[in-house]
């Protein structure tokens, strides 16, 4: 039950994040939306993990481990994007001076 509900929440977050990323105008805003999208993807994965419980485990540990790895990689991607945005803004300062 939880699995289905949060799986559907994940699907909704994917749509919301994607929309925000595509129509956003400020780079930082689009990065936030990318993170929303990512959280939706991980939730779908989490729902899959929860459904796969058994053999004494409440949830399938393999997708859970995969989600952990994915979260860290997605965070690294966010930092790279933020660094680019900051550099771009800094460059404009230099142009102005």
């Amino acid at each position, binding site marked *: 039950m939880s699995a289905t509900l949060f799986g559907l929440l994940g699907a909704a977050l994917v749509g919301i994040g994607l929309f925000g990323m595509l129509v956003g105008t400020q780079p930082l805003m689009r990065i936030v939306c990318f993170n929303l999208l990512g959280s939706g993807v991980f939730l779908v994965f989490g729902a899959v993990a929860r459904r796969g419980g058994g053999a004494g485990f409440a949830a399938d540990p393999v997708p*859970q481990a995969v989600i952990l790895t994915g979260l860290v990689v997605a965070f690294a991607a966010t930092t790279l994007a933020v660094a680019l945005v900051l550099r*771009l803004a800094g460059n404009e300062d230099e142009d102005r001076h």
Partner: protein
Amino acid sequence: MIAGLAVDVLLAAGSLGLALGVIRARRVFTAIALFIAHGLLLALAWVRLDALDVALTEAAIGAGLSGVLLLAARHRLARGGSERTTEAPGRVATIFIGLGCACITVALGYAVLALPKPAPGLAAEVAANLAATELGNPVTGVLMVFRGLDTLLEAAVLVLAVIGVWSLAPDATWRGTPGAPWPAVTDGPRALLARLLPPIGIVVAVHILWVGADAPGGKFQAAAILAAMGLLVWFAGLVRVPPTASWPLRATIAAGPALFMAIGLAGLAVEGAFLAYPEGLVKPTILIVEFVLAASVAAALALLVMGAPSRDAPP
């Protein structure tokens, strides 16, 4: 059962509302604040999905470090004045994009509902082989043994990300200290937190790392907490980060993945397969790797949040 369902519905509704709030927000600051709240609710959702390891990570990285990163970036952009914006799509285009995204959500939702029952998976396989890993936490077993390669590569990706972020600095400042410098504060709440929390945080992180072999927890969660403590002290201006050219700093980031790969290659030499651990010594080997990896990952995460060396004036 009913209570559980009620909690689930409340969590899902709250998280959905916050997500909608993020994309409707006019100011980036509002969006980030709502996003952090959303991350915290998601951490609870992960608990409900019986994924305590993920819940810890989501709270620490998804809400915590990402939140700090985004807020600090907004702060610097707000002071710098000009954030480049791209042109907004027209009204018709926006409607079409919205319809497209709605279609994706519907298709995805349908796919989630149509997943086969009983769900196929590897829980039984993990249970059957967990004894060979000498670990009690199946997630740690998957991360360090069955799918050790992914974990190893991911640690390498973090090193690569640090290199990438540093390479984005201007030529004039790139050998300086990472991030914009913060002024030292000797009193006030920031200083209070920066002095009070780190000892507690370090104890908690080591605890989480240590129990991670047998209970929820592990290197990523511990590293995220350590990184947060480091950032707290940094924001209070109580420590100076070594410059990017510093050899010890670079060695700290590289040590974890390098050791992991060295042990993997040793497994190749001794056992005949990359990442095969020596028999009987599996758990001690994994614990050593996890400790060094936690230190390296913590350093990398903190440096990623600090960002490229910059000559911005302090706020």
